[in-house]
């Protein structure tokens, strides 16, 4: 979009934008190019600098069964968390959208999870799901040993995913509610006059109209589950038991900082980066074409 009225000055805009560009160059583009460089080189074991190895690092991670396990796990994690969080948020938004008396109170409560740091929620949920303490762990009283996320990988993953989904409720709720409230009342009224009950109207009128928002949220949630899961995993399971909750971002951290395998971590970073770039790209392509109803 162009303005008709603007300033012309050869120096000033550069001065204004320079600090931002400088930070972006130092902390975004330099590290990214560095990651690319590392991904294609290998540190010589006996010193002597890096040697260019082309796609060897990528071949190494792609040949690694463990890595594919991590990728698969991240995918499942992303889909389940996103589905869970979005469906809860949408349901709540749909009911709140009826604007009954007292709804405002509920509305403000639903936003709370947005404010919570992932590690803080992680610690709280870890306690809630701890096998030895008394909430979910109580079922161990009935069937001894049935619940133990510290040894059962699937249970550990379920625990982390529930926590992640819970954290996303606030954000998703805000967007869904805004989208629902942007639908002109007359459309719902027309539907009602045709004899459509609320549930019918939801399916046939509201859902199609908020589809663009839902799509936007879907992508945002998937990306966040790839990147924001770090704090949760680190406070809840540390990737365990035996790596069964290790998602892509955690493996990058672990291989890079604990294993000091820069090349491998860099190659993994590039893969994750491409995933995020691809998703963001799809999103903006879609947003460009998307229909506006207001």
């Amino acid at each position, binding site marked *: *979009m162009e*303005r008709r*009225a*603007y*300033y*012309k*000055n050869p120096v*000033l*805009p550069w001065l*204004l*934008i320079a*600090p*931002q*560009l400088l*930070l*972006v*160059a*130092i*902390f975004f583009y*330099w*590290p*990214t190019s*560095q*990651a690319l460089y*590392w991904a294609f080189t290998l540190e010589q074991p006996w010193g002597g600098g890096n040697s260019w190895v082309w796609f060897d690092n990528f071949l190494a991670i792609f040949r690694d069964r463990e890595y594919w396990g991590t990728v698969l796990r991240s995918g499942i994690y992303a889909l389940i968390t996103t589905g869970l969080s979005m469906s809860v948020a949408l*349901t*709540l938004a749909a*009911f709140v959208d*009826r604007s*009954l008396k007292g709804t405002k109170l509920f509305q*403000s409560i*639903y*936003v*709370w999870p947005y404010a919570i*740091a*992932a590690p*803080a929620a992680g*610690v*709280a*949920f870890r*306690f809630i799901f*701890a096998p030895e*303490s*008394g*909430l979910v762990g*109580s079922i161990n009283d009935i069937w001894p040993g049935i619940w133990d996320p510290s040894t059962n990988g699937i249970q550990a993953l379920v625990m982390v995913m529930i926590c992640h989904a819970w954290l996303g409720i*606030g954000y998703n709720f*805000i*967007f869904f509610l805004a989208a629902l409230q942007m639908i002109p009342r007359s459309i719902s009224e027309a539907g009602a006059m045709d004899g459509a009950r*609320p549930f019918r109207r939801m399916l046939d009128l509201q859902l199609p109209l908020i589809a663009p*928002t839902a799509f936007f949220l879907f992508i945002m949630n998937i990306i966040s589950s790839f990147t924001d899961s*770090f704090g949760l995993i680190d406070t809840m399971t540390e990737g365990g038991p035996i790596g069964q909750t290790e998602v892509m*971002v955690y493996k*990058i951290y672990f291989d890079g*900082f604990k294993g000091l395998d820069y090349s491998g*971590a*860099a190659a993994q*970073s590039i893969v*994750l*980066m491409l995933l995020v770039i691809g998703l963001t790209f799809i999103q903006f392509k879609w947003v460009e074409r998307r229909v506006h109803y207001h």
Partner: protein
Amino acid sequence: MIERSPFFDFITYVAMAIGALLVIIPFWITFVAGSQSLQEVSQVPISLLPSGHLWENLQAAWVRGDLGPKLLNSLIVAVGVTVGKITLASLSAFAIVFFNFRGRMICFWLIFITLMLPLEVRIVPTYAIAANALLPFQVILDTLGISWLVQAASGIQISLNWNLLNSYTGLILPLVATATGTFLYRQFFMTIPDELVEASKMDGAHPIEFFFDVLLPLSRTNMLALATIMFVGSWNQYLWPLLITTDRANFGTVVMQLKALIPAQNGTPDWNVTMAGALIIMLPPLLVVAFMQRWFVRGLISRDK
């Protein structure tokens, strides 16, 4: 509401109440456990009513997590990042929207693309750059042969070094660059009518005066919205502070301390202290969101447009 349906209204309330429970339960459990004694918190099943030990647990967590200085660190970082982001975002959006200069769109895209490069995917090299933020310049000087020239001419060896590890600068600066904030401001600036710019020009006002006297006052609500999101976001940062501070005692933030509060594998399962600590750490951003809700919702939503 379109039709009157007492039955459906009832369903709505029940559903909303269940939703509220879903959201509140983790907070409630945190609070309840934080108020119990060690014996109470280890009971199975746990009592869902608060007990009278909240204060002593808070104190224990405060001491064990060294929360006082850590809260201060978090506050410094969160305020620093927020102020920095808002300043840079508004300035760069101002440049992009109100100036017509060569390379305007390139600048825009350079900032835009950073959205696709979250910290998590470039952690290792970003850590390396934090260890010496001047490294890129050193490399540029080296490749251009300038370092060699200087050394040959004057005998001085150029070695640029600026270590950001264990410093507030290091905690704050890398988080300050922001695409989101720039977009929010850009969006808002684009709604400013051309006439306002024309009028300001006719008054003979300098662009900077226009920025401070017209744009900033007009964007006050926007700024509040942005500030809320940025504050919460930077308070809740975990990965970056974890990497950049090896000197946890002096530069650790409060969210990092959570892990230190978790009972050890074979230690006393004093979850009551852990939960009391979690309560302290959750509270500041929660309060900010609760108070600023009206504005910050607006800020979030306008990002979508």
